[in-house]
């Protein structure tokens, strides 16, 4: 149980010419679950390593429980970490792998055994305890790696893509386990993942990184609904948010933007008042696929909702839903419709645009246009 502060941390690898981390500022409360996301190579693992004390900090400081640990040895930081590349001890059995850390810390043997049992059950690897890592499948290895971390009660857990190699099913189960674990222990957790759902469902807050910079730090809701800029908006959520560049217009009933389908028929999308200052200018309208759906009667009267007919280009049934691609403002737009309304390609369907959660971006800065005097979301400089 501890809080963690990362102040202006920078990293430049020995021979590398350019900085890998360019001044990261994150402060994590006691017991918080923070998730790091970002494209491959953006510096997530590097940051994790620095928190753990495994990489030199080039500049800035790291505080755990308000103590500067920037130069404290890893073992004295009381941190447990799961590595992206499992890093299991090849010469030890699964059991030995898990209990190694405990032995080092001089835990009495019977406690160790108990602990190992517990963890093994938790991760469904109790039947593998006496195997060597080399005899395990990728997924199993990853669970052992988890086990090694979970067997301890550190101040902070660091997970670097701990579930990436599991198949969907197992993955969901593990995810729930992690969640429960966190709820039970309330330990501070920093967690790297590529998986949208993981990020959204597990995190108290999500930190979106790109090229060694922190783009946005906020709750999943914030990040999802009010992304700081187009990158975040596009990176979080799959299928990705639709970016439609269009002009802000005004008529007696207020601001609006327009979508025109292939035969030139325009749909009028009501826009919020704060777009006033962009009146007549181009903005980027951000609409998520699930905000563009088939016609749903009981929503129809909401005045932030618009309707229009569009021709279907592609349909992708994903199982629970069907992703439909249509053409608007000469751009491909994906919408999410209920399988039972599955349209056929070429057919023209009536779509419903829910502008309640629509976001708008400045075409130049690519930053989200914020309502005046609205408390700006916690988003990195």
């Amino acid at each position, binding site marked *: 149980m501890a809080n963690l502060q990362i102040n202006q941390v920078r990293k430049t690898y020995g*021979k590398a010419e350019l900085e890998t981390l360019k001044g990261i500022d994150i402060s994590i409360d006691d017991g918080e679950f923070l998730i790091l996301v970002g494209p491959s190579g953006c510096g997530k693992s590097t940051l994790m390593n620095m928190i753990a004390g495994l990489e030199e900090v080039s500049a800035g400081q790291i505080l755990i429980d308000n103590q500067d640990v920037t130069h*404290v*040895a890893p073992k*004295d930081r009381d941190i447990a970490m799961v590595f992206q590349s499992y890093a299991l001890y090849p010469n030890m059995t699964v059991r030995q792998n898990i209990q190694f850390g405990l032995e080092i810390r001089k835990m009495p043997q019977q406690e160790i055994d108990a602990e190992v049992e517990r963890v093994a059950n938790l991760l469904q690897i109790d039947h593998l305890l006496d195997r060597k890592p080399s005899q395990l499948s990728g997924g199993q290895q990853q669970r052992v790696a988890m086990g090694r971390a979970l067997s301890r009660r550190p101040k902070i857990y660091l997970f670097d893509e701990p579930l990436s190699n599991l198949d969907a099913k197992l993955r969901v189960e593990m995810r729930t386990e992690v969640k429960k674990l966190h709820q039970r222990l309330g330990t501070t957790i920093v967690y790297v993942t590529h998986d949208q759902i993981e990020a959204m469902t597990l995190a108290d807050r999500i930190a979106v990184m790109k090229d060694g910079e922190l783009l946005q730090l906020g709750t999943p809701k914030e990040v999802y609904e009010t992304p700081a800029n187009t990158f975040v908006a596009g990176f979080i959520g799959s299928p990705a948010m639709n970016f439609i560049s269009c002009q802000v217009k005004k008529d007696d009933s207020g601001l609006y933007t327009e979508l025109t389908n292939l035969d030139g028929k325009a749909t009028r999308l009501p826009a919020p008042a704060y777009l006033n200052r962009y009146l007549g200018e181009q903005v980027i309208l951000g609409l998520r696929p699930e905000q563009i759906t088939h016609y749903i009667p009981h929503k129809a009267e909401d005045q932030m909702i618009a309707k229009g007919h569009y021709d279907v280009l592609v349909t992708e049934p994903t199982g629970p839903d069907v992703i439909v691609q249509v053409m608007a403002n000469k751009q491909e737009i994906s919408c999410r419709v209920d399988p039972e309304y599955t349209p056929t390609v070429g057919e023209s369907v009536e779509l419903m645009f829910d502008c309640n959660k629509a976001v708008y971006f400045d075409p130049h800065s690519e930053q989200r246009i914020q309502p005046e005097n609205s408390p700006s979301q916690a988003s990195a400089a």
Partner: protein
Amino acid sequence: MPLDKLQQWLPKLVLAPTMVITLVCIYGYMGWTALISFTNSSFLPSFKWAGLKQYAKLMDNDRWLVSSTNLLIFGVLFIAICLVLGIFLAILLDQQIRTEGAIRTIFLYPMAISFIVTGTAWKWILNPGLGLEKLMRDWGWSSFEFDWLVNSEMSIYTLVIAAVWQSSGFVMALFLAGLRGIDPAIIKAAQIDGASKPTIYRRIILPCLRPVFFSSIIVLSHTAIKSFDLVTALTAGGPGYSSDLPALFMYSHAFTRGQMGLGAASAMMMLAGVLAILVPYLYSELRGKHHE
């Protein structure tokens, strides 16, 4: 916390003895030799300064010229042939040979036997009157000629033969290991790409074995430069001193001929040579690795 400091210093502490040893017993002694090479030490080291006299002597001593050119020929041929042969054998052995173990051992055993004696055996084998030539002629191939050992033009090449015999096995082992170390998937991919076996070796596998080449070349050149037993046992530098090598030259002048200064000078020249050729290679290779 002090214990932490200790942890920080431990690596350096552990390495320290080796560092000291290296500095004293290798570079220190190199320095010592360098110093001697500027004195006119004769029978035993003495420190009467003589400037570059020894080097001058060395330069117009045509035995030295012979032996240093010999080292060049020897080194290049030895390394080249060892590599080629080693790779060749390794590739053959890598074809799931049933008796691999036995054959591998046969190729390796020469490393195990000291040249003090195999030298004699080789002397006989290469000697026209006793060995191969005689044998071939006894078997009826009367025109067979193989008198390199007793031919001042060719004697140096007999050294190459024997040396290759001794070291190629090790190179073979290295490359065999290298081949075994390659990720099978890569080869599968190449097969899918439609490459034939030879192409796969030429275009994919061998280029992947760069590190092996590195290790081999280090070991081989190290052997080549130090070849001493080999020469003494096989030709003792003869006929005349046509097959002399710097190591032998240095030794016999420093110790048996009481010209320590000259010996030291020749040693320094050898080192200079190594420096000139090897260091750039070492450097490029080690650098190269950091990127990957």
